[in-house]
């Protein structure tokens, strides 16, 4: 298979063994992969551990779009970004870990901005329940403890 590949194509193998053929320009948007390619320690197939096929496909989709649309209007890219990152919490978590681990700066930026938008304007209790997995009874007790802790600092 690799013999039929063009020179500037790379194969990325996800943690569950699926392979993706990606142009090199797209793959090197990940700093980690870029370093591997530059140091020439990568053969044609680059293993991407910790990232499963599903998430890897999403990351590649994102990178492709960003690579293609360099000339396009920035606002188009922005709308694409905001739609792309609009996902459930589990996918968001996987994407952030993948982007962080593989060092894809643009994706990490878009994701963090999205999570920040989600947090913006929410109350403490809302944040605790939605993002930190707190239960109702924990909130009641922690609120109690917080109040005591605040008062203690004075007098």
């Amino acid at each position, binding site marked *: 298979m690799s013999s039929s590949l063009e020179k500037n194509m790379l194969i990325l193998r996800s943690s569950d063994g699926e392979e993706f053929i990606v142009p090199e320009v797209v793959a090197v948007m990940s700093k980690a992969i870029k370093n591997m390619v530059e140091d020439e320690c990568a053969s044609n197939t680059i293993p991407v551990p910790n990232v499963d096929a599903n998430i890897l496909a999403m990351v590649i989709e994102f990178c492709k779009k960003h690579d293609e649309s360099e000339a396009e209007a920035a606002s188009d890219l922005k709308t694409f970004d905001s739609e792309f990152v609009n996902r459930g919490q589990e996918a968001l978590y996987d994407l952030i870990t993948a982007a962080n681990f593989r060092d894809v700066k643009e994706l990490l930026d878009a994701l963090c901005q999205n999570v920040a938008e989600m947090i913006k304007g*929410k109350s403490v209790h809302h944040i605790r329940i939605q993002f930190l997995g707190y239960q109702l009874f924990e909130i009641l007790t922690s609120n109690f403890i917080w109040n005591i802790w605040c008062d203690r600092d004075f007098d």
Partner: protein
Amino acid sequence: MVAQWLTWIPHLWVQLVCSDTLHKEGFIGLLPDEIIIDILSRLPTDSVLECRRVCKKWLALTSIPYFASKRGAKQDDICVFYHPLAMESRVLHVLQKANCFQYNILTIGKNKLWRRLDSFSYRPKCFETPTIVKRDLYWMVKHTYENEYNIPPCNNSIMRFNMGTEQFCSMPHPGKECHSRPMHEKMRLLKMGVKLCFGYLDARLIDIWQLEDVKNWLWVKTYKVNLDWDVNCYPFVFSVIDPYYFNFEVKLLKIQNRELLMDWYSRGLFAYHLDLGTIRKIDKARMKRPGWLQCN
């Protein structure tokens, strides 16, 4: 009959307690600290204040200087404190004017309101982390040096903001007048119980002063900490021991339960008991220090 009525109690108990262990921790809690800081640094000020109340970890993450520098242009121009009488948090904001500093205060509560305070000729160093004693906020003054050899004024090296009167004032630091820039860099304000303390690191000695009388600005030197510790017991991790560099790598962090907590960069984190004179090495701290903790 009665027993049947009570069956909901264990059921509720299971719902409350067991569901907690089964429940997956929310996704932000699982992210690495750097990412959480990145996310929180993108929020507007009032959301950051809300997030500081979410949990102790977030409070800690939004209190370190790295967070302020991540927020970019907004770097250390705000300081958040809790007003005990009004029972609410307030934000202090500083803006540089021609040759003085304009301070504004924001009350957060039912009605958000920015108020202008009097301008003051100094601005604090490490504005976002004041030492709060009773109803006063204390900082070391940040001196602006136009020229390298400018002498810092010792008479105005500590500044205070009173929550009640909302007035600023500046005071001299305890000890002799030094008029030396590196010496001012080695001074730290600390808090012990309900008293303001002042730590000054000179060669291998730390002097701890205590503010006995706030009105008359009367300081008493209470402790002397000798840093000449046994090299065998507490070895240097890095072998570079430069006598000039020595002072800069010991950082006084805080006083807790009469123990002075200090970060000695090449040796680790230590707690020195001020009354007993014993040293305790805090082992966990030396294991791994993330990159962002190292910036001051």
